[in-house]
C-alpha cells in the first residue's frame, strides 16, 4: 500500500524553480497494476523515484505499507528499497563486467544471503525468465530483450512488493517490448504491485489503472 499526501519535489535551475511534483496525492493498493503517462518533463520519473525512495520529497508525507517512510535515514531507506522495491529501467542498468547470472545475483549479495542459496535462487530465476543458456554471457553479448529480462529477474529475485518500471520498453522494438510487458504482467498476476511509466499509449492502456501527469500534477486517474 503506497500513500502519498501532498508530495512536492522541486528543482532549482538558477533562480528558476521547477516543481517536478506539485502537491501530489496518490494511493496505490497492493497488487494494483498502474500505468503513468504524460508528456516529457511532466514528473513521471520523479514520482517513481520518490515512490522507490531513491529521491526525497521537499514536503508531504509518504506511507509505505502503513509505515511513514518520509523521514527514514539513508540506511533505513536503503533497507526498505532492498526488501520492498524492485526497479526496472529503460537503459537496463546491468553491470557490464558481470555475467547475466552475476547481475541477477547482486540483490542477494547485498542482502547477505549465503552463496549456496544464492546459486539455487539465481538458477530458478534464470529458468523462469528463459535465460538459462545465457547465464554466463555478459550484457554486451545479449540482445535488448534479453538484457531487460535479466534486469527484471534481478529486480524481482528478492520478491519485492512493488515493481517500479520507468519506460521498460523504451529501448526495445514493439514486439520485444510487448513480450517484456507480458513478463511484467505475469509478475503482477503473482501479486506484485506493478507501476509502469510509459510513453506508449497502447502499452499504457493495458494497465488496470491509468494515471496521466502534466507539469507535476496528476491530471487524470482512471480505473
Amino acid at each position, binding site marked *: 500500500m503506497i500513500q502519498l499526501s501532498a508530495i512536492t519535489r522541486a528543482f532549482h535551475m538558477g533562480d528558476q524553480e521547477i516543481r517536478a511534483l506539485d502537491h501530489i496525492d496518490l494511493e496505490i493498493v497492493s497488487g494494483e497494476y498502474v500505468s503513468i503517462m504524460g508528456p516529457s518533463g511532466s514528473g513521471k520519473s520523479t514520482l517513481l523515484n520518490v515512490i*522507490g525512495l531513491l529521491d526525497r520529497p521537499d514536503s508531504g508525507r509518504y506511507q509505505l505499507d502503513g509505515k511513514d517512510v518520509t523521514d527514514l535515514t539513508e*540506511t533505513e531507506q*536503503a533497507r526498505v*528499497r*532492498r526488501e520492498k522495491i524492485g*526497479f526496472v*529501467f529503460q537503459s537496463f542498468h546491468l553491470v557490464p*563486467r558481470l555475467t547475466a547470472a552475476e547481475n541477477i545475483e547482486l540483490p542477494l*549479495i547485498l542482502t547477505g544471503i549465503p552463496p549456496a542459496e544464492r546459486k539455487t535462487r539465481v538458477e530458478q530465476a534464470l529458468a523462469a525468465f528463459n535465460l538459462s543458456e545465457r547465464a554466463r554471457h555478459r550484457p554486451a553479448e545479449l540482445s535488448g530483450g534479453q538484457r531487460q529480462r535479466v534486469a527484471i529477474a534481478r529486480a524481482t529475485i528478492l520478491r519485492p512488493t512493488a515493481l517500479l518500471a520507468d519506460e521498460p520498453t523504451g529501448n526495445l522494438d514493439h514486439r520485444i517490448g510487448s513480450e517484456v510487458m507480458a513478463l511484467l504482467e505475469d509478475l503482477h498476476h503473482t501479486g506484485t504491485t506493478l507501476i509502469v511509466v510509459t510513453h506508449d499509449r497502447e502499452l499504457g492502456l493495458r494497465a488496470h489503472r491509468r494515471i496521466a501527469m502534466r507539469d507535476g500534477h496528476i491530471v487524470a486517474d482512471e480505473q
Partner: protein
Amino acid sequence: MKLRDTLQFSFKTVTSYPIRSFLIILAMALGVTAVVVLTALGDGARRYVIHQFSSIGTNLIIVLPGRAETAGSFPGAAMGQTPRDLTLEDARWIGQLPQVRRYAPLNVGSAELAGASRLREVTVLGGTANILPIRHMELAQGSFLAHGSQHSAQIVLGAKLAEEFFPDGNAVGQRIRLADRRFIVSGILASQGETMGYNSDEIVIIPINHAQALFDTTSLFRILIEVRNRSDILSVKEAVRQALIQRHDGEEDVTIITQDAVLATFDRILRALTLGVAGIAAISLAVAGILVMNVMLVAVSQRTSEIGLLKALGAPASDIRRLFLAEAAWLSLTGAIFGLILGYLGSLLIRLAYPQLPAWPPVWASLAGIMVALTTGIIAGLLPAARAARLDPVKALSGK
C-alpha cells in the same frame, strides 16, 4: 553486505580491469621492492661490518699509542707533546694481569720480499705466537713462530705469497729475504681472504723483535688483549689504563678501545642508515598511494551509474564505501605481495653477485613494507570511497 562478499566482489572488479590494476599493482610493488631491497642492502652492510669485526677476534681490547680524545682532558697534547712509546715492556706488564688470557703486541710496516727470482712489496706484521689465536687465523702448513723463538729469523707467509714465491708448494723450510734480512719460512697461513681492509693472504708475519729492528722502532703499533671472560672487558680496560698511566709517569697517553664499543657504534650507525634508507624507499610507496587515489577517483566517476544501480538495489552508503575501500586494499595488498617477491628476488640477486654481502631483507622491513603499502592504499581509497558513497542515486543512475 557480508564482508566475504564485499571482498569477493571487489576482487572481481580488480580482475575486470586488468591493465589499470596491473599498473597500480606495479607501482605499489616497486615501492615495496625498493623498501625490501634497500633495507636488505643496509642490513647486509651492517652484518658485513659486524662480521668483519668479529673475525678479528672476540673479547678483545686494543691499546694504541697516543690519545684519541679531545685535548681538554690532556694538557700535554695541547702543548704539542708527542705521546710516549708503547713498548714491549708495557705489553708484557699487561700480560701479567690475571684476567688476561693472552696478549699480542703488534708492529706493522711494509718491506720488500725477495726470493726465487721474485720481488715484491708486502705488508709485514711483527708479532708473537699469540697473534694467531687472537686474530683467529690458521696455518695451512708448517708451524707458527714458536714460543721462545722470537729471536730466530722465522717468517710465516700468506697463502697467496707462498703460492707466488713457491709455486711448487714446498715453501716451508726455504730461505727468503725480507729487506736484506734472511728468513726461513716456518709456515704458511691458511687462505682467509679480505678482513678489515687488508688481505691476510698477502702478508708476512715475522717475530716482533725482528720487525722492530727492521723498522727501527721500539714503539708498538698495537697491543691486542684477549680477556678470559667477556664480562671482564670493562674491568680489564680500566686495569690496563691504570697500569699504563702508572708506567708512563702518570700521564694517560694511550687509547684503549674495546671491540664491543666499536661494534656497538657501527651497529648503531648502520641500523640508523638502514632505517633512513627504508624511509626514503617508503616515499615511493606514498607516490604509489597517490596513484591509487587518482585511479580510484577515476573509477568512481567511471562507475557512477553502477553505484547508482547498487543504491537502487538497496545498497546502503556503507556498502558502497566498503566496496571501494576493499578494492583499494586488494590493489595495494597484491602490490605489496608482488613487491615482497620482487624484493626477495632482488636481494637474492645481490647475494649471488656479492657473496660476501649478507643482503637478507630484515623481517621488520618486509612487515613494515606490507603495512605501509596497505595503509597508504586504504588511506588513498578513503576519499574516493566517501565520494562514491555520497553520490545521489537518481543523478548517479542518469550518469550525471
